[in-house]
């Protein structure tokens, strides 16, 4: 019974994790940047939902609709503020990592100053709260809400990526920036928009995270970034579909660990990221590429 429970719970949470990790993978795929501030964007999404709920009585799910366009614009601006200067650096990859590390510190500090250091949570009454009974087990309602919101959002994201001109251009840049520029794509603009979309995905996941994690606090960014990174490495960097599958497998593994060895379950993401990097660096769905 517990096994089935872990599987179902893992799939529900896996969908949420997919939303949480997708933006990180998108930004990596397009610009080869690991956005270490990703987790902090998730955190900001949570605070955004909190403020909108208590300030304007806005339902958290609707808060996502409000925040997505704002974050896209903010991300677009942030990209042009930070990245072009860095492009010419010799050690672009490591420096971008350090840069976003700095950004993450700034965001964390500002959130702590603005929102205080205490964890904040939203009342369960803001969303349907009746636990769902399935195959003899109870599943918290917020898990279903998280999965139920994440799934259509991921659907919209995939439609954007695979069915629109901008999405097609994005994938072209992901595949080969030089080749993309050669067909007249403005790679800078596409990258800036992708960066915004990546942040918007993070913010949307942040709203759900308030329920899934039971609250939001300014210091949660690092562990979210590592978990998201573990997932995208596992599912193959630059492969959006891999992130979905990786997230669900991660969700199930985490739930199994929670059920069978609860005190060690927090190690799952760390083992996942180190193990994947050492044993199968290309991830589940990556092809081994020629080194020279």
């Amino acid at each position, binding site marked *: 019974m517990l096994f089935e429970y872990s599987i179902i719970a893992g799939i529900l949470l896996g969908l949420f994790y997919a939303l949480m990790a997708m933006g990180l993978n998108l930004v990596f795929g397009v610009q080869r940047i690991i956005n270490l501030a990703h987790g902090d964007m998730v955190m900001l999404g949570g605070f955004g939902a909190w403020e909108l709920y208590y300030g304007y009585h806005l339902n958290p799910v609707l808060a996502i609709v409000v925040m997505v366009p704002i974050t896209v614009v903010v991300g677009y601006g942030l990209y042009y503020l930070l990245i072009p200067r860095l492009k010419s650096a010799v050690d672009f990859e490591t420096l971008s990592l350090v840069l976003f590390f700095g950004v993450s510190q700034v965001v964390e500090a500002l959130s702590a100053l603005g929102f205080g250091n205490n964890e904040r949570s939203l009342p369960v009454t803001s969303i349907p709260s009746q636990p769902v009974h399935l195959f003899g087990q109870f599943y918290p309602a917020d898990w279903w809400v998280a999965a139920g919101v994440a799934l259509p959002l991921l659907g919209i994201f995939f439609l954007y990526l695979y069915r629109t*001109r901008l999405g*097609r*251009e994005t*994938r*072209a840049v992901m*595949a*080969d920036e*030089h*080749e*993309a*520029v*050669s*067909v*007249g*794509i*403005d*790679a800078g603009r596409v990258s800036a928009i992708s960066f915004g979309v990546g942040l918007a995905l993070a913010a949307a996941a942040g709203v759900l995270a308030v329920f899934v994690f039971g609250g939001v606090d300014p210091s949660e960014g690092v562990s979210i970034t590592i978990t998201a990174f573990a997932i995208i490495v596992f599912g193959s960097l630059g492969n959006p579909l891999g992130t979905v599958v990786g997230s669900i497998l991660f969700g199930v593994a985490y739930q199994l660990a929670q059920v069978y060895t609860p005190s060690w379950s927090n190690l799952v993401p760390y083992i996942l990221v180190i193990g994947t990097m050492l044993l199968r660096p290309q991830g589940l769905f990556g092809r081994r590429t020629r080194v020279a």
Partner: protein
Amino acid sequence: MEPLALEINGVSSGYGRVQVLWDVSFTVNQGSVIVLLGANGAGKTTLLKVIVGLVKAWSGEVKAFGEDIGRLNTARRVRNGIAYMSEQGIFPGLSVRENLALGAGRASKAEVRERLSLVYDMFPELVERGKSLAGSLSGGQRKMVGISKCLMAKPKLLILDEPSSGLSPKFVAEVVEQLHTLRSFGITMVIAEQNVSFLETADSACVLEGGRINFSGGVDEFEGDEALHAAFFGLEGIQEV
């Protein structure tokens, strides 16, 4: 008088500190086809990249249709009617249809449909492969996709980097045939090649050796195995020293 399609004046360039091109100059008339011949490492690809703006010229001038394009980025040059097919030429991970759509740039949907039907007329084989990943096609078909992708931009000037690379002789003949057709449409072309078969479709030829141009002229002046031999194997060039 019509402006020249392309005018390269004293271009030097390279990567980092490594100089690859030395003082390269040549011109291409509108509607004509030029083949840049040279062994590997002679600088052909670099020269093409300078023309489309993927590599900066250290010095010298690049003019297209009378306009100095040296300061434009690649996207702008492409929108100004210069299409470029790199040696890879396609996005292997995207479908054929997507490759073609990307080639069309900002064109409207109706416009894309119209151009697609033109391309499909020219390459009927591609119609049924629309949904396949470009990378899954045969070498010859990939070149077809690469060339079609360029045509989708309705280019005035078509720049092709080694359209024969990775192809067996049979497919090379096919590609030459296709380019011959394009030529009859009046598209100006610059083709970098190692394979002399492409001389069949060309009006003029340049030979690059060690990053310098050591022959330039009409195809008719360029006959005889000896000259070619020298160009590729470089025996004569150094023996005089």
